């Protein structure tokens, strides 16, 4: 019985276009989730895979000692069985002297076994031909970068010696994917075949070596391997990927990830809001039929089944529609920006589709459960007493269910209890405050607007339905707030990234400048209008003690885990400098800079990261060893250093009195535009002992990644805006329905179109302004929380936000109201009344 009636009702409702809103709301949720999470995960995968080029792998197992194959082979074979694309390469890195005739250089050697690099591109030039290489030089041959060649004064086909072996130079290294971020640490590069190592005899007990196993896979092989290996790692082994660590790239990726996650989450909340709005409206329209069914003797169970079935059909239709739409949107977007991403985007994953499906089902079922339950409880007496409804009843259940559903959704997305809980409580708190405030604002507006014509009528209308209007303001405000939050966040994130590496960021380093060359080099640059940083003196020295405690025992673990990732180990030589002025880009976090003019002041300023790592505080006495001479100096300040700034940065800056008498060479960085690149040979010819490190390629790569992440954020923002607008529209329609009856009465009583339009528009305008104002306030709060707690960014107040939000709210909601009320004014009052009755 119920099935038949349900089908009949469905058919008719679909025909009349009433159910479409509900179907669209569910489709919207699914579409938002599918396209957002699908797109973001695909973009992210692409970015990570591209950025993995900086590691030459997806993941690296690094060790200070030879890695016993037995340690990882079983896990590797098992992981490869489930993901055949899993592959590996092996690197041994160390520094050693290379000789060519009279010339010698301390080179950074990379001995390769297997298809290195697994990610990114290794470009070598073999004579005239430039080729992309995957593998190692042939046994007995080596590849050199330009620095090594010029330091040794040799070229292709020449020979050099490493340890006991002689090698022929067979190619020049043009681009190395995993070149060190720390340009000061990297010596000239030599690549050789791993099989040649034993014969050289350079690897001795006690040699300082880094063993690396590189892994990459297209499927989940690397993650699986990681799960197996991670628990087995010893103290001097580390398992890491491009997203770990402190490189500027890792930070950008990490933030982008969090942002994408957040945006998807907010998208889900938006969609859930749309469904809740639509379900409520749908239910309220069915109060009368349910009362009639009950009067005619239909049982509660049958009524529940009838609507449950409808819900099932609607949900299925919505989910299918959403999946198709989401797929089309995703593919469209990928097609549009795929070229700009510059590498192959993986195909749409089933996971995102599942997530979207589950989200759609949860949204549809949980958010419409309470309204449906309310339906089944409608009193049959409503057939006689038409004003009976259930406002106020089951509110606690509604709140509880909404809360539970929201939490499940958030958790489903983030898979992170802590994030879910904090976001959930933030949303709940915002909701509570907004509900309270919106009622207060309505009351104030009513008092203020009494007796002011159409405005007064509009305000009276608003206040009369204070409860439902407060809820409407809440859902409008949630839409506007999420929108603002995403827009501002995206803008400020991209801004901050661009500030990190602004136009004109130094892209060349000059090292090894003799003191007497400093004035002529600065003049040379000034003549050519080249922007440069200050030239810093540099003295090599070693930190040997902290407050008389020797460093040797405490450093070994730090050293292995931090080497080659922008942090120097601390029991080896450091680049020390002195300066009377505080470097502008190094803000002090503790202590004071030495007084200007005090030429005898003794002190050192320590970079905050290393201070934390080795446990140094203000006032500690650090012992240094420079060329056999030992001295102690107190820590007088702690500095923050942005290692991504591409300026000369130092762990230790001394007061001039401490270091000025030691022999130093100078260093600095400068910016050359591509057109100015031609100055380089001139510079090198004029100052043959000076070394130039070109990092423009590296900066280009980082900027490329940042551009792509920005692009991804932009797309996601567009999707969120679309979702928010749809929510606003659904909400406007729903709230307009509530007003329709009154409008019809006004119309029937002879209210002019202009009067009715004004009343409706003013009501919506006021709703919009109030919502926008609240949204602005709440967006400010959430921006503060997100920026300081989640994204680790600087927060600043946005006073204009409140005004803009109120304005935008008034405009959009007002406009939507105008559109919604148009059909009302174009039809006769009689047909309107009929429709109300029917």
């Amino acid at each position, binding site marked *: 019985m119920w099935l038949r009636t349900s089908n009949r009702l469905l058919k008719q409702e679909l025909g009349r276009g009433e159910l479409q809103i509900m179907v669209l709301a569910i489709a919207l949720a699914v579409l938002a989730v599918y396209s957002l999470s699908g797109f973001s995960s695909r973009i992210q995968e692409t970015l990570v895979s591209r950025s993995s080029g900086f590691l030459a792998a997806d993941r690296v197992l690094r060790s200070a000692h030879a890695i016993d194959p037995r340690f990882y082979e079983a896990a590797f074979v098992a992981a490869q069985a489930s993901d055949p694309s899993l592959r590996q390469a092996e690197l041994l890195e160390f520094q050693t002297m290379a000789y060519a005739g009279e010339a010698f250089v301390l080179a950074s050697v990379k001995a390769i076994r297997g298809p290195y690099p697994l990610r990114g591109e290794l470009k070598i030039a073999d004579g005239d031909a430039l080729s992309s290489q995957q593998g190692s030089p042939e046994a007995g041959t080596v590849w050199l970068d330009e620095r090594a060649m010029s330091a040794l004064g040799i070229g292709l086909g020449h020979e050099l010696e490493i340890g006991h072996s002689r090698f022929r130079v067979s190619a020049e290294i043009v681009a190395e994917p995993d070149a060190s971020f720390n340009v000061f640490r990297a010596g000239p590069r030599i690549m050789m075949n791993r099989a040649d190592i034993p014969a050289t005899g350079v690897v001795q007990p006690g040699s300082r070596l880094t063993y690396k196993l590189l892994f990459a896979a297209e499927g989940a092989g690397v993650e699986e391997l990681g799960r197996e290996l991670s628990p087995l790692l010893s103290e001097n082994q580390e398992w890491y990927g491009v997203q770990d660590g402190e490189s500027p790239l890792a930070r950008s990726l990490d933030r982008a990830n969090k942002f994408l996650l957040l945006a998807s989450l907010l998208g889900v909340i938006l969609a859930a809001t749309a469904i809740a709005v639509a379900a409520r409206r749908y239910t309220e329209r069915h109060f009368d039929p349910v009362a009639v069914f009950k009067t005619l003797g239909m*049982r509660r169970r049958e009524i529940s089944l009838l609507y449950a079935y409808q819900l099932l059909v609607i949900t299925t239709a919505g989910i299918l529609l959403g999946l198709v739409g989401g797929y089309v949107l995703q593919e469209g977007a990928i097609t549009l920006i795929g070229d700009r991403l510059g590498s192959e985007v993986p195909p749409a994953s089933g996971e995102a589709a599942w997530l979207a499906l589950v989200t759609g089902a949860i949204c549809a079922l949980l958010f419409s459960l309470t309204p449906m339950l309310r339906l089944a409880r409608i009193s049959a007496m409503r057939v006689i007493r038409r004003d009976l409804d259930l406002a106020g009843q089951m509110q606690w259940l509604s709140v509880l269910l909404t809360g539970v559903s929201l939490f499940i959704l958030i958790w489903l997305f983030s898979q992170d209890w802590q994030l879910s809980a904090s976001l959930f409580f933030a949303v709940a708190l915002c909701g509570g405050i907004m509900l309270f405030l919106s009622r207060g604002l309505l009351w104030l507006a009513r008092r203020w607007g009494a007796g002011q014509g159409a405005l007064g009528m509009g305000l009276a209308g608003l206040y009369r339905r204070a409860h439902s209007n407060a809820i409407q303001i809440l859902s409008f405000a949630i839409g506007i707030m999420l929108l603002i939050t995403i827009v501002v966040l995206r803008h400020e994130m991209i801004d901050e990234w661009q500030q990190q590496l602004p136009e004109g960021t130094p892209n060349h380093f000059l090292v090894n400048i003799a003191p007497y060359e400093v004035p002529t080099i600065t003049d040379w640059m000034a003549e050519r209008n080249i922007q440069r940083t200050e030239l810093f003196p540099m003295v090599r020295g070693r930190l040997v003690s902290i407050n008389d405690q020797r460093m040797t025992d405490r450093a070994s673990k730090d050293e292995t885990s931090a080497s080659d990732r922008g942090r120097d180990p601390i029991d080896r030589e450091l680049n020390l400098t002195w300066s009377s002025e505080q470097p502008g880009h190094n803000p002090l976090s503790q202590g004071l800079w030495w007084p200007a003019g005090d030429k005898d002041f003794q002190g050192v300023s320590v970079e905050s990261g290393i201070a934390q790592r080795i446990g140094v505080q203000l006032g500690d006495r650090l012992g240094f060893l420079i060329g056999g001479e030992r001295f102690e100096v107190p820590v007088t300040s702690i500095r923050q250093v942005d290692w991504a700034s591409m300026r000369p940065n130092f762990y230790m800056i001394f007061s001039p009195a401490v270091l000025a008498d030691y022999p130093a060479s100078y260093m600095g960085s400068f910016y050359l535009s591509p057109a100015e690149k031609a100055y380089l040979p001139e510079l090198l010819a004029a100052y043959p002992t000076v070394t130039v490190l070109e990092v423009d390629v590296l900066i280009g790569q980082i900027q490329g990644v940042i551009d792509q992440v920005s692009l991804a954020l932009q797309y996601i923002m567009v999707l969120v805006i679309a979702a928010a607008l749809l929510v606003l529209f659904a909400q406007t329609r729903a709230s307009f329905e509530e007003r329709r009856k009154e409008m019809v009465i006004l119309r029937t009583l002879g209210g002019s179109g202009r009067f009715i339009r004004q009343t409706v528009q003013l009501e919506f305008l006021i709703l919009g302004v109030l919502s926008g104002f609240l949204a602005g306030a709440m967006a400010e709060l959430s921006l503060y929380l997100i920026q300081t707690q989640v994204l680790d960014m600087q927060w600043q107040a946005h006073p204009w936000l409140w005004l803009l939000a109120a304005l935008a709210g008034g405009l959009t909601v007002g406009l939507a109201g105008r559109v919604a009320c148009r059909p009302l004014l174009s039809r006769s009052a009689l047909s309107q009344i009929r429709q109300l009755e029917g």
Partner: protein
Amino acid sequence: MQKEAVIVAKNLGKTVETGESQLTILRGLDLEVKSGESVAIVGASGSGKSTLLGLLAGLDESSEGKVILGGESLTDLDEEGRAALRARKVGFVFQSFLLVAGLSALENVMLPLELKGDRREARLRASEMLERVGLAHRTQHYPNQLSGGEQQRVALARAFVSSPEILFADEPTGNLDHANGSRVADLLFGMNRDAGTTLVLVTHDLKLAQRCDRVLTMDSGTLSEGETSADPQEISACG
């Protein structure tokens, strides 16, 4: 032969909470309606007529006293039980028609039969019933495509299609113009007479009320027999 009572109300009372105070709508009300009898309940607005109708039909629960409908005590039934009883024995006509907007005229009329379980003959009998009320040509129309008079005729067809023992009518002509109101009233009484249904009619319209066997007046929650301006001739004309 003495006809048996199909509706019995004993000491019926209804009180509702209005904020802090209690409002008594009905108090100590006794009523007996015999099988096949037609009873009109008249009274001013707010006198409690509709509340009484709701209680007699089992749409609402009384605060005190009991109602026996078709031999079953409503007080002993839960909502489900009352729904089942309504499906078996009761038909309704309302002032605001209350057709299900999403169902066609025919489907609206089929509804009570389907709820009763008479699925096979539902379509045929509903069509006959619509023909009876003069709407054979409007069976596939939806409520909003019908005039008020037509909607109420569909409601009449829906009320009688399941051959209920008892019919409750709440201001059946209240929303209709004179011509449509008369036509609906004629149909109502005609069909009622043909089916031998017990009719309880709540109305403001004294003329309509006088077409019933008995007229009861509701005043401040109590019921009294008769109605001052009753005209014996008109009452005798009642079906």
